[in-house]
C-alpha cells in the first residue's frame, strides 16, 4: 500500500527515486499517471476516468464509520485447514501478510453519521476475499449480533466466492450466512448489502444478494460464474458490460449504483428510512 507524501517517516533519508515512486500511481482504468496524494484524497477513485480502485477493509471502515467509533468483534476467529488442502497453509500466511489482517473480513459495531450499526467489510487482499468457515462464521455472528441488538447491518463484500481450499465446508457457509440473514429478514432488522469490486460466485449467490437494499459501486465486477467458466459457457455473446454493476442494475439485480464519494451519505439516507422517523 502506498503512503501519502507527507506521511512518511525519515523521508529525508530516503532515496529521491523511491519518493518519486511513492508520489505517483497509475490508474488501472485509464492507465494515466496520477499524483498519489490526489488519488488518496479522492478515495482511490481516478479523478480523470472515475475508475474505482479497491479499498482495503480498514480503508473502507474509515470511509463509512464515524471517527473512532468502530469497535471490532470476533477478531480472534481465523481459518483452520480442515482438509489439509495442498498449499492452503502457505496461502493463509500470504493472505495475512498481503492484507495485514487475520482473516478476509473485519466486523464490528460503529456509528454511521450518528446511526449505530453493525458493519462488516471484506478485504480482497486476503486470498481474494474468499469465504471459508471463518468468514462465514464472522458474517453469521455479525448478523446475530445485529438481531440481538436490533441494529441495522451493513456488509461490504469483495470476494471471488467460496474458498476452494475448505471444500464442502466453504459451500456450507453460503447456507449458514443465508440462515442468519433469514432471521434478520423475519425480524425486520435492516440489512444493506454493498457490492464492491469484485463480488462473485458463492458470496453473490448467498448473503450478498439477500439484502433489503443492494448497493453496488460503479464498474464493480458482479457476477455468478468466474470469467473463465463464463467465457467457455457462452452460447449468447456477452454484452460489453457483462457481469458489471451496471449490467446487474440494468437487469434489476441491484437497487442502485453509488459513487464512493456519496456512499456514506447514501447509506445514511437508506438506514434512516428504516430506523428513523
Amino acid at each position, binding site marked *: 500500500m502506498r503512503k501519502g507524501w507527507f506521511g512518511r517517516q525519515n523521508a529525508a533519508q530516503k532515496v529521491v527515486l523511491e519518493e518519486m515512486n511513492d508520489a505517483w500511481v497509475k490508474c488501472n482504468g485509464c492507465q494515466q499517471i496520477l499524483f498519489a496524494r490526489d488519488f488518496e484524497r479522492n478515495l482511490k477513485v481516478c479523478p480523470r476516468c472515475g475508475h474505482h480502485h479497491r479499498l482495503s477493509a480498514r480503508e473502507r471502515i474509515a470511509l463509512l464509520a464515524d471517527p473512532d467509533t468502530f469497535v471490532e468483534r470476533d*477478531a*480472534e*476467529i*481465523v*481459518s*483452520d485447514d*480442515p*482438509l489439509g488442502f*495442498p498449499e492452503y497453509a502457505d496461502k493463509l500466511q500470504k493472505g495475512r501478510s498481503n492484507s495485514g489482517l*487475520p482473516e478476509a473480513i473485519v466486523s464490528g459495531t460503529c456509528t454511521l453519521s450518528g446511526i449505530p450499526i453493525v458493519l462488516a467489510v471484506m478485504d480482497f487482499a486476503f486470498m481474494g476475499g474468499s469465504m471459508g*468457515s*471463518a468468514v*462465514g*462464521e464472522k458474517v*453469521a455472528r455479525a448478523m446475530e449480533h445485529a438481531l440481538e441488538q436490533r441494529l441495522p447491518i451493513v456488509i461490504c463484500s469483495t470476494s471471488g466466492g*467460496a474458498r*476452494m481450499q*475448505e*471444500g*464442502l*465446508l*466453504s*459451500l*456450507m*457457509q*453460503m*447456507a*449458514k450466512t*443465508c*440462515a*442468519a*440473514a*433469514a*432471521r434478520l429478514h*423475519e425480524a425486520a432488522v435492516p440489512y444493506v448489502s454493498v457490492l464492491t469490486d469484485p463480488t462473485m*460466485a*458463492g458470496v*453473490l*449467490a*448467498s*448473503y*450478498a*444478494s*439477500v439484502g433489503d437494499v443492494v448497493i453496488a459501486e460503479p464498474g464493480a465486477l458482479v*457476477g*455468478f*460464474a468466474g470469467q*473463465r*467458466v*463464463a467465457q467457455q*459457457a*457462452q*452460447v*449468447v*455473446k*456477452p*454484452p460489453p458490460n457483462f457481469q458489471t454493476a451496471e449490467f446487474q442494475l440494468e*437487469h*434489476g*439485480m441491484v437497487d442502485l449504483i453509488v459513487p464512493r464519494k456519496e456512499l456514506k451519505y447514501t447509506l445514511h439516507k437508506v438506514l434512516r428510512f428504516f430506523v428513523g422517523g
Partner: protein
Amino acid sequence: MRTVLDFEKPIAELDANIEALKRLTAEQGIDKSEEIAALERDRERLLREIFRNLTPWDRTLLARHPQRPYTLDYIRAIFDDFVELHGDRQFGDDGAIVGGMAWLEEKPVMVIGQQKGRDLKERQKRNFGMAKPEGYRKALRLMQLAEKFGRPVVTFVDTPAADPGVESEGRGISEAIARNLREMILLKVPIVSVIIGEGGSGGALGIAVADRVLMQEYAIYSVIPPEGCAAIIWRDPKRAPEAAEALKLTAHDALRFGVVDEVIEEPLGGAHRDPLRAAHIVKEALLRHLPPLQKLSVSKLRESRYERYRRLGMWRLAIE
C-alpha cells in the same frame, strides 16, 4: 450404448463371457450352468474388490455415469401418482428442474429435483441438469405451495452446476439461489434432500437446504468440479484425479464434516447396475426420516434446521 468406465472393464469382460455361455445354453442346448455360476461368483468377488478400492476420482466418474438413475427414475420408482407442475410464474419453465405432487406410501409429498437427459435431445432440453434462475424459482414456488398445504418436501440433487450463461446471469442466477437458501431455512414444513449424483456447488445447494440431507454412496458433493480445481491450483485440468482427492468430495467425507446426515448404500457396483434396488433403498431411507420430522412443531423444526447449518464449518481461535 452402455458406457463402461475404465475400472469397470474387467467386469464388463466377465459379463460378456457369462452372456456368451448363456447364449450357448439357449441356442445349442449345452448345459453350461456350472461354468456360468462359477463366473458369476468371480464377477461378484471382482465387483466387491473393485468397489472396495474406489478412488475419489472413480467416484466422481460413477456419480456422472450416463446410466446412473436420474431424478425422474427415482420419482417413478419410489412415488405414486406423480403430477408434474411446471413454470416459475415469472419467466418460464426450466427443464433442468422437475417437480410436482406425489404420494409416498399413502402420504402426500412435494418432490423436486434436478434432471439430466439420457440422449442428445433430452440433454439439451434438460441443459445437462444445469438449472437456470427460473428453475430455482419454480423449485421455491413448489416448496411454498407445499408449505401452504402442510406437505413435506423431498428434493433430489444431481447437477454439475447452476447454468453459467449470459441469460441466466441477466435473470439473476445468484439472486435466485441466494433467495432459495434463505427461504428454505424459513420453510414451515420438513425438507429431506437426497444427493443422488453430482452435488455441484451452489447449483446443488440451491435446492438442498434441508432438515435431513442424505447422500448416496457413490454420489459426490463439492464446492468446485475437480477439473476446475485442478485448473486453478496446477493450471492443468488433467490433474483432476488429484484435485478430487484434495477436495474431499465423497459421501463419507460429507458425513464426517456433518454436511450430510446419512450415507445411503447403493447396490453392489453402483446404482446403475440395479436402479430399482437403488430406488428401494432410497425409499426406505425417506420412510425412516420423514415421519419423525413431521411430528415436530413448526418452531422446533425450524430451530433445528437453523442450528444444523449454523454449526457447519471448521475454524479456530487465534492465539494472541
